[in-house]
């Protein structure tokens, strides 16, 4: 296991804000694999993922000082995700506009529980975990987009390629299902 550099990501962003290219490279090195994996799980088009990642890090480079100034207890990695998610939505909008094709399909999901996943159940909670697993895939996708990824209803609609009304309906159904499972 490689040694973790003493600077955390927030400090790196502050250095980038001062024009420190080495800090930028370090932030990229540390966060790009995670970002790539996460984005690829939301968009099946690798070319689009590459485009989004490039725009994201460029935005971080250009506006680091503004981000650093607004660090109100947020995490730098969280901001990077927020930028990336919004850029992904924008890129999907552009694709839809240009080619009149629906946004790229997501990779297929199959719900097959595995033994090793036990270790992480603690963080989600048994009942919640159970409820999540039993949730229909399309409902879970909406929940993931809105809660985990932090997108709005309209952005979720673009990401998933469904109308806004559908997103709202699914979000409501997901919430009801979870509430039932937890009560």
């Amino acid at each position: 296991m490689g040694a973790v550099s003493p600077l955390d990501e927030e400090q790196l962003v502050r250095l980038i804000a001062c024009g420190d290219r080495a800090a930028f490279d370090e932030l990229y090195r540390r966060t790009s694999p995670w970002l790539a994996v996460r984005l690829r799980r939301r968009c099946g088009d690798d070319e689009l993922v590459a485009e989004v990642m490039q725009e994201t890090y460029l935005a971080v480079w250009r506006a680091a000082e503004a981000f650093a100034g607004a660090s109100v207890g947020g995490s730098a990695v969280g901001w990077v995700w927020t930028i990336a998610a919004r850029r992904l939505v924008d890129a999907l909008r552009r694709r839809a506009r240009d080619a009149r094709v629906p946004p790229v399909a997501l990779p297929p999901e199959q719900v097959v529980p595995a033994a090793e996943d036990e270790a992480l159940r603690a963080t989600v909670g048994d009942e919640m975990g159970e409820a999540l697993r039993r949730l229909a895939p399309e409902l879970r996708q909406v929940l993931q987009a809105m809660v985990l990824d932090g997108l709005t209803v309209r952005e979720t609609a673009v990401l998933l390629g469904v109308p806004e009304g559908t997103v709202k309906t699914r979000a409501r159904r997901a919430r009801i299902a979870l509430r039932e499972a937890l009560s």
Partner: protein
Amino acid sequence: MARTAGAAETAPTTYAWTIQAERLRVRAGRRMAVDGLHLAMGSGVHGLLGPNGAGKTTLVRALATVLRPVGGTLALLGQPVNGRVDLRKLRQVIGYLPQEFGFYPRFTVREFVEYIAWLKEMPAPEVPGAVQRAVERMGLADRADDRMKTLSGGMLRRAGIAQAIVNDPQILLLDEPTAGLDPEQRLQFRALLRELAADTCVLVSTHLVEDVVAACTDVMLMDAGRLVFRGAPADLEAAGSGPGDGDSPAERGYAAILRRHREQAEDAR
């Protein structure tokens, strides 16, 4: 970053049209600039054409809630804006570019858009990211930290559009957005409009017929305070079949419809 999705956000939409007006009357000075206008707009890019003095700017101002109607009804996102209403929540999802776009010369583009973002009551942590995104979408990323007095007219207009979209609005009102843009910039602007058409209700008020035809999903023609035509750009062009003034079918259609409307008004008198 995880966030909670409130119940209000996912409540089903109860309204049919994003913008709906009936018998709308709005005063501008002493004139009744909008007089008995009916309107129903949903998502998409809507073009608003009309001669000077037709009341376009007054209508856009009424939709931006900076002018109160004196008659008729106006509802934005299902919420009526007559009478005493708290418009704060509504205005947070509206973006507006006035015809006379005033800016602060000594401010940088970023500072100006951040100020507007503050005025729009965007949550502070979101502002830098939203400003960067708006600036990049308008192609001003390289000039974001230059003072506005150093920008050309076209770039200033783009900065104006950037402030209008910084809060990712559901209603976008642009009054003469392409003034001063060169042809390449107009193409980029039309591309942006098409991008927004999917989930935003955009109203573009302009006197440039070609802009409307190229980028809008439907066209509205206004004269003397009322709508005299509503339809697809192709319908506008079809109305101008045959000889007439104008260099393009759309312009001929525009002139023909105006002429017909005025003749009818004359006959009615």
